[in-house]
C-alpha cells in the first residue's frame, strides 16, 4: 500500500504523541501561521540563548502531517545553532519540493535531515506539501523575529 510511504510509522507516532506541544516560557518570539486551504493553524514560540535555539514550543491544529512535522522539527532543532537549524530547514524545504525524487533526496541528505527523512513520501503528494511545511515556515519566521529583536536590544 502506497499510503505507508507518506504515513511512515514515525509520522503516526509523532502525530499520536507530539513532542514539545503546549506553549512554554520563556520565549523570544511568537508567531501565528495559517494554511488557508485547509484551515490548519500553528502558534509557534522560539527561544534563543546566544545563537543557540534553546527552546521551541507550539500549539497547533491540523492534520497528521502538519502535527507530526511540528513535533519532529522541535525535536530536531532544539539545541542546534541558528545556522545549523537553518540548514536543516532549507534542506527540508528542498525535500518537500523534490516531488517523486523524495526518497533519493532524503537518503542523500539523511545526515542533515535525521528523523525528518520520514517525510520523503509526502513530497509526491502536492496537496500535502503545505501541511508538512506549515510549522517550518512558522519557525523560520519566529526565529527571524527573535534575532531582529535581539539585535535591536529588545527583550521579549
Amino acid at each position, binding site marked *: *500500500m*502506497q*499510503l505507508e510511504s*507518506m*504515513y511512515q510509522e514515525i509520522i*503516526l507516532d509523532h*502525530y*499520536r504523541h507530539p513532542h514539545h506541544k503546549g506553549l512554554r516560557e520563556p520565549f523570544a518570539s511568537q508567531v501565528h501561521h495559517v494554511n488557508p*486551504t*485547509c*484551515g*490548519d*493553524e500553528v502558534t509557534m514560540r522560539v527561544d534563543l540563548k546566544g545563537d543557540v535555539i534553546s527552546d521551541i514550543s507550539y500549539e497547533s*491544529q*491540523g*492534520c*497528521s*502531517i502538519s502535527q507530526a512535522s511540528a513535533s519532529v522539527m522541535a525535536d530536531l532543532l532544539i539545541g542546534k545553532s541558528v545556522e545549523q537549524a537553518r540548514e536543516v530547514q532549507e534542506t527540508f524545504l528542498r525535500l518537500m519540493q523534490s516531488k517523486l525524487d523524495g526518497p533519493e533526496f532524503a537518503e542523500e541528505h539523511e545526515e542533515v535531515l535525521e528523523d525528518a527523512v520520514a517525510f520523503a513520501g509526502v513530497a509526491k*503528494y502536492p*496537496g*500535502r506539501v503545505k*501541511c508538512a511545511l506549515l510549522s517550518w515556515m512558522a519557525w523560520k519566521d519566529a526565529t527571524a523575529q527573535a534575532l531582529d529583536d535581539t539585535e535591536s536590544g529588545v527583550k521579549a
Partner: protein
Amino acid sequence: MVVNPQFLDTDAIRKDFPILQRTVHGDKPLVYLDNAATSQSPQQVIDTIVEYYSLHNANVHRGIHVLAEEATALYEGARDKVAAFINAGAREEVVFTKNSSEALNLVANVLGWAEAPYGIRPGDEIVISEMEHHSNIVPWQLTAERIGAKLRWFGITDEGRLDLSNLNELINERTKVVSLVHVSNILGTVNPVETIVKRAHEVGALVVLDASQSAPHLPLDVQALGADFVAFTGHKMLGPTGVGVLWGRRDLLEELPPFLGGGEMIQTVTMEKSTYAGLPHKYEAGTPPIAEVIALGTAVDYLNGIGMDKVAGHEHAITEYALGRLQEVEGLRIIGPATNEDRGAAISFVLGDIHPHDVGQVLDEHGIAVRVGHHCARPVCVRFGIPATTRASFYLYSTPAEVDALVEGLDQVKQFFGV
C-alpha cells in the same frame, strides 16, 4: 419540493461516462464522490466538442460564411435549450458567462453601477447568508466596500438550516438586494426560496439565487421560483468547464448598465461614445465560450433524457441511504441536516479527531474521491467550530455500492489512525 425517491438504472448510465471506467492507484475502481466540486461528462458531451472543432468551428454572429452560420445556429440553439431547461420566460434572459462566479460578480457590479431604483447606494443594505460559497460572499463585500453599503447575513441553525428568526428585521426597507444560495454546497441544505423572495419583494429588494448546486440536481423553474437573477455553472451539470449561466428578468437586464465592454456587446461604437446591443448580447462581451455553450446544450439534452425529476428522485434515494449508513459509523458527525427533508446530495462530516485531510488521503488510496477542506464556505466551518469537513457528494450516476465503499473506507481510515 416533492421528490419520488427511486434509484435510476445506474448500470446503463455509467456506461456513458468514460471516466467512471477508470481505475486509480493501480487497480482500484474510481469511486467518484466529489460531484459538488465538479461533475463528470458523458460521451455525448465529449463528442459534441469533438464534432464542433472538427466540423463547425467559427466565430459566432456577424459571419456570413457556412462555418460562421453553423456555429451561430449551434450556439444560439444551445441558448434555447438552456432557456427551456430552466423555464425562462424568454431566450434573451439567458446570458452565458464563464462560470457561476462571473455571473454573481456581474450582478454585484452592475447593481453597484446602476441608476435608481436598482443602484446600491451608501447606507443601503445587502443581505447574504453565512452558508454562502465564497463566490457569493466576496463579490458583495467588494461592492459594499466600494460603495459604502452595509453587508448583512442570515445565520445558520445548529441543524444546518438558514436561521429565519430575524427575517423581517434582516430584510427591511434599506435592503437593496438579497443574494442567497439555493442549495448549500457544504451543508446540503435546500433553502426556502419562496419565503425569502416574498419578504424581499415586499420591501422592494431584488433576489439573486446561487443555483450552482440546484440547477444540476433538481427541476428548476426560474419563473416559479420568483427570484430576479439565477446563477449556475456548466461543469457541475455534466457540461464542460468554462461556461456558466446568468438568468435575469428581462426588464431588469434591459435597464441595468453593461458589465464587460467589447466586441459583440455593442450596437454602435464611436471613439466618443458607444451604445449597447440588446439582450442577451449586451452581457456577452468578446468571443463567447462557443464550444462550451454548445456542449452545455448537449448536457442539458442528456439530463432531459433522464428527466430532472428522476435525477432528483435518484439523489434523494441515495442521500437517504448515505445518511443512514454514515450515521452508523462510530464517531462520525454530520455537519448539516442529518435528515433528508429539503436536502441535496452533498453530505459533510467530521470523523472523530481525524483531520479531514487524513480522512481524504486514506479514502483516496482506496480509490474513493471525496473533497476535504472548507469547500469555499469557510464561514460555515467557523460557525461549527471545525477547521474543515470531509464531503461526499452524489449525482445521477452514484450508486448505493459507492456509499458502501465510502463507509468501508471510513473504517479503514479509523483503523489506519488507530481510533
